[in-house]
């Protein structure tokens, strides 16, 4: 079989979703970890140092290209699968079957689309102005801590971020476990671990992100 046959089969397409999904899960740990520096309560000194390393060092900037490739693969493949899967029923049922599965496992396409919309807002809030300021190379950056403070002083921005992160949480609640099933983890003992870690991850990471705009909005930071 050719590589094309592998990655265009239904199982191969799911493998792409799984590999890119796990890659994005790992990225979120780095993202949440660096952003957590805002809670150092030093007026953003430590946070800006971390942001400077990520934005002005050539290694993270090259890795950033890989991140976008992974992200686009996940989005495009996900949307294509969603549309293809939806077309397989033909005539819809008069009474739909909803008891056998969790609502968020059936709504991965919808949750993913909400996250995509949130991501466009999020990137145009922080990433894009910063890169424009840098001339898309390794130029001088804007003060991202001050930028966060300014953005998160508006209630509606905070609400949009909380909603985006909640969608992320539910997307991860199914996606984390599903990714490992897709790469073939069928051992009961390991599945129990992945299920447990998956739910934990889907709560902790989005909660950490949610607390960031809230911390700024309620002036919990010095």
């Amino acid at each position: 079989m050719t590589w094309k046959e592998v990655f265009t089969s239904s199982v191969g397409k799911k493998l792409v979703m799984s590999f890119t999904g796990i890659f994005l899960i790992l990225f979120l740990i780095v993202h949440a970890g660096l952003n957590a520096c805002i809670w150092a309560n030093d007026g953003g000194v430590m946070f800006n140092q971390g942001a400077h390393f990520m934005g002005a060092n050539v290694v993270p900037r090259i890795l950033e290209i890989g991140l976008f490739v992974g992200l686009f693969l996940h989005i495009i493949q996900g949307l294509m699968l969603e549309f293809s899967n939806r077309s397989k029923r033909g005539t819809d049922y008069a009474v739909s079957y909803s008891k056998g599965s969790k609502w968020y496992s059936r709504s991965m396409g919808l949750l993913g689309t909400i996250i995509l919309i949130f991501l466009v807002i999020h990137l145009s809030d922080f990433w894009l102005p910063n890169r424009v300021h840098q001339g898309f190379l390794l130029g001088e950056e804007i003060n991202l801590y001050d930028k966060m403070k300014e953005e998160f002083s508006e209630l509606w921005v905070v609400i949009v971020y909380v909603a985006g992160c909640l969608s992320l949480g539910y997307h991860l609640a199914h996606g984390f476990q599903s990714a490992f099933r897709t790469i073939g983890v069928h051992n009961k003992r390991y599945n129990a671990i992945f299920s447990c870690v998956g739910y934990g991850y889907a709560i902790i990471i989005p909660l950490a992100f949610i607390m960031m705009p809230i911390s700024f909005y309620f002036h919990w930071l010095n």
Partner: protein
Amino acid sequence: MEHKNINLTLKVWRQQSTVSKGEFVSYQVKEISQEMSFLEMFDVLNEQLILEDKEPIAFDHDCREGICGMCSMYIDGKPHGPWQANTTCQLHMRAFNDGDTITVEPWRAQAFPVLKDLVVDRTSFDRIIQAGGYVSVNTGNAVDGNSLPINKNDADASFAAAMCIGCGACVAACKNSSAMLFLSAKVSHLALLPQGDPERQSRVVNMVAQMDKEGFGACTNTGACEATCPKEISLSNIARLNQEYLLASFTASN
């Protein structure tokens, strides 16, 4: 248990042929014993329709003891009706109350076109099996017990997968109309045993290719198939299929 007769309203999907447009038609059935099976209730309704000079409702059935996989009704939003681990023929009318309205639909999937009323064409499953769901060589007579040692866990998992009766409820329940639970049961059943081992790679690759060709959707691990399966085929079979496919596709030399 107390014996009761009940009256019901049935909303049944009627469709003359694959190409014609179908619709729901309501029927009243009276004095239905709660000890009847769901299909016996349909027999009573069909008798009534024949006496009224109307066309009886076409539905699939064969053994009526839950082992052949022919019956296929989507009852009140669940394949094979409200009971767990149960086929339509083994669903009994005590699952319903007097005055209930029951909606009965055929399996819905493009790969399962409606032939007539509640009968769908499931030969796509046969073609998936023909693509590799067998052992090519004649294995001869059954050998003496324990002359071919097989790990007990593997033997049990293989037997549990072999329980699949190929009814298609997994496809009917899946939001993507995916046949992965069926396929994974067939692949697991053979891959776990020494007789099926030599062909495990070509089997999984060919069967997945045939499943895609038939127009089934991709699996998103929601678990709806496992929840409705009359034989309780485990979702872990799908993960095993994924592993088989991953190994086959990354190690195959041609």
